[in-house]
């Protein structure tokens, strides 16, 4: 092995170990510590100067108390459940809106498609925070939507959407829509129109041809899109904190408040560890789906 190759591997490797792996191990360790009124606000801390006995004291001081607390306090269990529920339903809604959208782009005239795709990608590059801010201008009580509804006489009272879970759903669909549209589009684009004709020639109705050919072939894209929305939505912080109400429980928000408002670092770390455990299954399923698609493309 020559020096250049070793250097090429070592530099990014060391960087990731130091700034990704080690920090995560620290979270794991602090999640087993106890809250303490000190700087830093947890105990035990590892006293390397005291040698072996310092290490032993440190080791004995670690326990699963925070996890026991999390599993007993209904607030946290509710927060995990409600995050799962919100993320699942929001993913489904995004699929409902995203699929026809992707389908329409894939069926648009060839020369339009690059521009339409650019129009989908553009909001994805525009700041996430700004798009949520833009949404507030639409759905708030004095917002554009309510002005419109009152002006047309559909309602006389403003619809209260802001600071409710509905606003959180709208926010997730709005900001994550490109993540759903792009993978579905890329599978639909490759779809061979003659397959649909063949299905119809063989006696399928248009609807059944659509279900058994189009949907079936678009499945990898649909699955990828759903995971790309579900995984980040589950740990979302900005959307529930800006659009949701005080009763909107999402785990990302709970973690943030536990850390910044209550300054309970060990508990915040335990919340993070559990969130990651909840995410591992969808992440593995997502990777498998990607792998399968790569193999099929070969």
């Amino acid at each position: 092995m020559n020096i250049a190759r070793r250097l090429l591997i070592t530099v990014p490797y060391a960087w990731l170990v130091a700034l990704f792996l080690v920090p995560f191990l620290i979270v794991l360790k602090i999640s087993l510590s106890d809250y303490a009124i000190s700087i830093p606000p947890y105990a035990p801390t590892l006293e390397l100067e005291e040698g072996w006995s310092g290490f032993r004291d440190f080791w004995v001081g670690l326990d699963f108390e925070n996890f026991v607390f999390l599993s007993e306090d209904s607030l946290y269990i509710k927060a995990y459940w409600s995050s799962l529920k919100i993320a699942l339903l929001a993913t489904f809604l995004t699929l409902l809106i995203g699929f026809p959208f992707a389908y329409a782009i894939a069926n648009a005239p060839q020369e339009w498609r690059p521009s339409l795709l650019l129009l989908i990608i553009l909001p994805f590059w525009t700041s996430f925070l700004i798009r949520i801010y833009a949404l507030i201008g639409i759905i708030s009580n004095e917002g554009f939507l309510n002005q419109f509804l009152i002006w047309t006489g559909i309602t006389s009272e403003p619809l209260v959407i802001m600071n409710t879970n509905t606003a959180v759903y709208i926010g997730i669909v709005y900001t994550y829509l490109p993540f759903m549209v792009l993978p579905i589009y890329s599978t639909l684009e490759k779809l061979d129109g003659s397959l649909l004709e063949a299905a119809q020639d063989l006696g399928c109705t248009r609807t059944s041809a659509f279900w058994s050919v189009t949907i079936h072939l678009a499945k990898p894209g649909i699955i990828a899109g759903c995971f790309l929305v579900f995984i980040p939505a589950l740990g979302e912080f900005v959307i529930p904190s800006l659009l949701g109400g005080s009763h909107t429980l999402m785990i990302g928000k709970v973690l943030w408040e536990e850390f910044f408002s209550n300054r309970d670092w060990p508990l915040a770390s335990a919340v993070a560890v559990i969130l990651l455990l909840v995410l591992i299954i969808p992440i593995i399923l997502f990777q498998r789906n990607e792998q399968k698609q790569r193999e099929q493309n070969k």
Partner: protein
Amino acid sequence: MRKPSWFNVVSLTLGFAFLYIPIVILVIFSFNESKLVSVWGGFSTKWYGELMQNEAFLDAAWVTLKVGVISSTIATVLGTMAAFVLVRAGRFRGRTLFSGMIYAPLVMPEVITGLSLLLLFIAVGMDRGVTTIVLAHATFSMCYVSVVVSSRMATFDESLEEAALDLGCTPWDAFKSVTLPIIAPAVASGWLLAFTLSLDDLVIASFTAGPSATTLPIKIYSSVRLGVSPEINALSTLIIGLVTIGVLVASVTSKRAIQKQKRDELLAEH
């Protein structure tokens, strides 16, 4: 070509309306004379003027720009190296861990990344400020860069590089004159992606920023929490304008680069 059906036309119209109406309204109301964000009081650019005099925003913009440029440059170098390791280095001990560490940050919730980095910086006794945000951003951006660059490298003909080596190039020369020009568009779009990710990040920056350094998203977030204000509309319009121009320029240049590459390949075949 099939004629566009009414269903497709309706989905396209509704879809794009949903995506763009909020942004268009935000831009329009940044030119509103009135302080009320939802009532039109005549055209004015006064909020842009006030923005330019708001020291706090200008400071935050400067910090954000600095963090963005430095972190995305580091991320591009590290990410390109990592892409080489993933595609070219073959087997080595710890390879699985390495690719895991490249892909994991892409799906890691931001709150966890932010929390873990903050706890690291505290454990090693680093003062929080521009440096810590740069380190944090470079770390998660390098993973995105390496994904972009390695997908380009996977389709790249290695024999070109071998030919250069056979013709007497040193490995470094071969890299500079053969490999780099081919992967350059991917490296450039990786840098751009890293830069926008850094510009955009609120959660990780909130964890890793100290009192001495506030980025623009942190500033925007704390004022949005207090309610909508025309100044934020003006600031958002400026950012949207810059990003739009950047993306359009990048997509046109990359289209040209691809066309040129195709032409060159055609010429080389004849």
